[in-house]
């Protein structure tokens, strides 16, 4: 068996939610909430692939699932599928194909009523195991408001859409926008090493410098404490010459905090302090749960 339940780690991306073995990490992430794909691998080989695509409202769901399965495994294999639907009301018309003679691919295809998406999960099976039906599929859910990737987990503002992601080693950043409100959540590891390079004020300044074309700082970094985490905050305002650009928020607040228990440096940017606080409190919560 590849894993035990104690080693599972949450993965929340574009509304899809899974708990996967801790050694599987995303190596490819493409697309948005309507259509995209994700590939996970351990240190030696690909393990799991996921694809999702929004179906048009009048599409026959059963036919779409069948057709996706045929495309993935071929007509003969598609005839050997069994109906399998993960727990949760959102799933419909799930079909599972188990490769009888591994190595090969176990494939599950299903439709989510919640987001009207066709979801495909492909598990690269080396020897005969039941990781896909017994461990992966029971944790599959849709319409999650949380995001969790590598060691970064958070709950952004409701209705947030991911605009950009930068997942470098030790520097994970997710950029959202929600109703014209920009939101940046960045996590730097290892904080103790990062802070030997430059102080926390300069980490925040460097983040805010990326907006210098449109914004300027109006104050010195102020000490702040949110949810038991200590750090600094600084407000930046839209430059006067961009007063016609109503799509840009007038002010943005940046906060840099040190999470000593997880040894991470958190940098969050949002238009208002009341938006920031619940987001900061949510960072890392999914992993602790």
């Amino acid at each position, binding site marked *: 068996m590849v894993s035990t339940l104690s080693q599972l780690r949450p993965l929340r991306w574009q509304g899809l939610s899974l708990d996967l073995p801790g050694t599987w*990490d995303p190596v490819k992430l493409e697309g948005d909430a309507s259509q995209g794909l994700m590939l996970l691998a351990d240190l030696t080989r690909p393990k799991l692939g996921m694809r999702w695509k929004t179906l048009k409202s009048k599409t026959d769901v059963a036919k779409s699932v069948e057709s996706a399965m045929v495309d993935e495994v071929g007509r003969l294999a598609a005839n050997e599928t069994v109906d399998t639907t993960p727990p949760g009301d959102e799933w419909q018309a799930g079909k599972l194909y188990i490769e009888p003679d591994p190595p090969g691919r176990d494939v599950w295809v299903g439709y989510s009523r919640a987001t009207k998406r066709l979801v495909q999960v492909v598990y690269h099976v080396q020897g005969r195991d039941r990781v896909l039906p017994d461990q992966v599929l029971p944790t599959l859910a849709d319409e999650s408001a949380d995001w969790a990737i590598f060691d970064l987990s958070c709950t952004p503002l409701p209705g947030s859409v991911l605009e950009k992601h930068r997942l470098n080693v030790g520097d994970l950043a997710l950029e959202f926008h929600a109703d014209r409100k920009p939101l940046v959540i960045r996590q730097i590891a*290892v904080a103790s090493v990062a802070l030997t390079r430059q102080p926390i004020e300069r980490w925040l300044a460097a983040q805010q410098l990326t907006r210098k074309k449109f914004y300027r700082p109006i104050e010195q970094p102020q000490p702040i404490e949110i949810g038991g985490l200590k750090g600094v905050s600084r407000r930046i305002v839209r430059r006067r010459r961009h007063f016609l650009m109503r799509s840009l928020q007038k002010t943005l607040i940046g906060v840099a905090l040190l999470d000593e228990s997880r040894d991470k440096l958190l940098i969050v940017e949002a238009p208002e302090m009341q938006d920031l606080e619940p987001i900061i409190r949510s960072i890392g919560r999914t992993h602790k749960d």
Partner: protein
Amino acid sequence: MLFGTKKPRLTPEEALAAKPLRLVEAEMETDSKGGKLRVPLKARKFAGWMFNVPNGAAKTFEFDAIGVFVWESIDGKTSVQQLIRKLSKKYGLSEREAAVSTNQFLQMLGRKSLIGWNVDQRKSTTDEH
């Protein structure tokens, strides 16, 4: 191959099982930020004849705390996989994060001729092609 020898290509498993070993005998001076490795310069045959390398000349490499940890773990017996596990455990990183940073760091050390590789290659992949 016409010039030089073709480098053997390693499978991911072989690369993870490879054991890096130090090629220089140098002391790491550690401080709160990391450490400094002073490597004595040795004159090569031709360069030694052409240029006079002063006695005690050394090249200094600066390491951060993670670099010091990896350098001190390199002993010719610890495999890359073990290094990755040790690093991810010590700093609370995911295995992928630890693997990417460790591999890049080891490659950099290799380019600077500070480390070599002890590879247990069961069957060279170059022979198969």
